[in-house]
């Protein structure tokens, strides 16, 4: 019997622990991520959100726990114990990582086109003309004028840099994209546009996302499901609307009530 693919999670995190010395950053965290789903992780600064994201992405070694990923080949890979070679290959092909600061995720000394083409070249694409065509398509997809293909990212505005970073990650059609505060540091109108774009791309390409944010507004717009973290622990998890409308945990109630409304 072949398992129904949409009935198995794309990613299962099981009992993940990560400490820095005596400081516990992530304590016993478990969750599933389903294909095409957007999971939001919210919580205040220092609650372990980014540590969790970096641990899932293999950027930090975990202390214990499993990160089970169902690869495109349909085999289950435990990223916590996978070899460097395997993990790095997955990260370049089936995964994407959008950094809070675009300059961490972009090659600032190289043009927009080179930034978009990098993953393809890493996979062995060696036809300049085709790389360029792909780059132009993606610039259009993320609403950057195609004639800026040869410009350096540092001549771009913050919002454009962030969109370029998204294009650069989506070019290999990843199945999971991790986003660390994708709209942090952008002004609200640019933020709104970027959120629209992310929502559209996520839907079009059927990509699963984990979005870390401290902004409940962003979480409400993007995420299907939310996890609330505090002191390295998940205090509450559930459907976004449900959780925001009827928060159960005292901390979530505090978080929701402290949102400024205009």
């Amino acid at each position, binding site marked *: 019997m072949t398992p129904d693919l949409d009935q198995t999670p794309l990613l299962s995190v099981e009992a993940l622990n990560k400490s820095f010395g005596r400081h516990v950053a992530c304590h016993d965290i478990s969750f599933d991520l389903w294909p095409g789903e957007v999971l939001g992780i919210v919580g205040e600064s220092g609650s372990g959100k980014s540590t969790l994201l970096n641990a899932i992405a293999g950027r930090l070694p975990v202390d214990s726990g499993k990160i089970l990923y169902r690869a495109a080949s349909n085999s289950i890979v435990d990223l916590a114990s996978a070899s*460097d*070679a395997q993990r*790095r290959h997955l990260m370049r092909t089936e995964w994407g990582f959008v950094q809070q600061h675009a300059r961490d995720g972009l*090659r600032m000394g*190289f*043009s927009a*086109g*080179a930034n978009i*083409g*990098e*993953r393809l*070249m*890493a*996979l*062995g694409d*060696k*036809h*300049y*003309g085709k*790389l*360029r065509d792909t780059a132009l398509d993606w610039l259009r997809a993320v609403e950057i004028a195609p004639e800026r*293909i*040869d410009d350096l990212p540092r001549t771009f505005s913050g919002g454009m840099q962030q969109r370029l970073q998204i294009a650069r990650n989506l070019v290999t059609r990843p199945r999971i994209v991790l986003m660390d505060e994708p709209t942090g540091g952008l002004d609200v109108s640019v933020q709104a546009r970027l959120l629209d774009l992310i929502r559209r791309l996520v839907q079009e390409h059927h990509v699963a996302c984990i979005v870390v944010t401290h902004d409940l507004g962003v979480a409400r717009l993007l995420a299907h499901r939310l996890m609330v973290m505090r002191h390295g622990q998940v205090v509450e998890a559930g459907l976004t609307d449900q959780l925001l409308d009827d928060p159960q945990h005292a901390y979530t109630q505090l978080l929701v009530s402290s949102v400024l409304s205009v």
Partner: protein
Amino acid sequence: MNQAYETSATLAGYNFAFLDEQTKRMLRRAILKAVAIPGYQVPFGSREMPLPYGWGTGGMQVTAAVIGAKDVLKVIDQGADDTTNAVSIRHFFVRMTNVATTEKTREATLIQTRHRVPETPLSEGQILVYQVPIPEPLRWLEPRETETRKMHALSEYGVMHVKLYEDIAQHGHISTAYDYPVLVNGRYLMRCSPIPKFDTPKLHMNAALQLFGAGREKRIYAVPPYTEVKPLDFEDHPFEVERWPEDCALCGAQDSFLDEVILDDRGGRMFVCSDTDYCGERRAAGHTGRMSAPYKEEAAE
């Protein structure tokens, strides 16, 4: 002083070839490892040499490790045998080893070079030693040494194409003109020291042993004889070498790397072979170029 070739003809108080025997053993071990893994950068304990870093300390240490009393040494700097760097290093080895030297590529058994590969094809049994300033091809793309080592280990070389892409995007062609990135033996990405890309194809399937020494960066790597060396390129922008609008003004060579020499302030210029030995040999054989007549006396010298 237990070896027969160490005669009193070398400078008193110094070991043969300047370095002590233990240091030479360490260097030879590194060289053997480098030869066994073509293109792989082998770390070694680089020593202080009596000239500054960047002037060829890496190449000199490799030369000192492999030189024997019967060797015939040739030293080139930018193709010429008579420039400061070449003269100084040759003089150093003559004082330290008393070996015979030559300017003829064919006669040399050991050639230390900076920035050029001789035009005359090398043969089996010859050793070409390159002076390398920066051995890591991924250095300007990835600043962390731990990361570049991992990239080498996992053959993650796609990022090198990003640089070539950028060349084409900005200049319309691959404008990397020297130190062209190559893939050695289908495995390791290598910098071939700052030789012009004109010389890059000469590394491929070369009959001679090619050793690369980087003194400041403490790395040795090698291309053994008859090893595949492939320059990186794009399918629709294949690797090409430089061309010149004229032939060599002295010997008429069409197949050698030419230097442009400015003659006056009215746009007058000439192109001459950068490899002085090759040019001289051709002139001795009767080849002439566009401007060779007024230079005949010098050429006949």
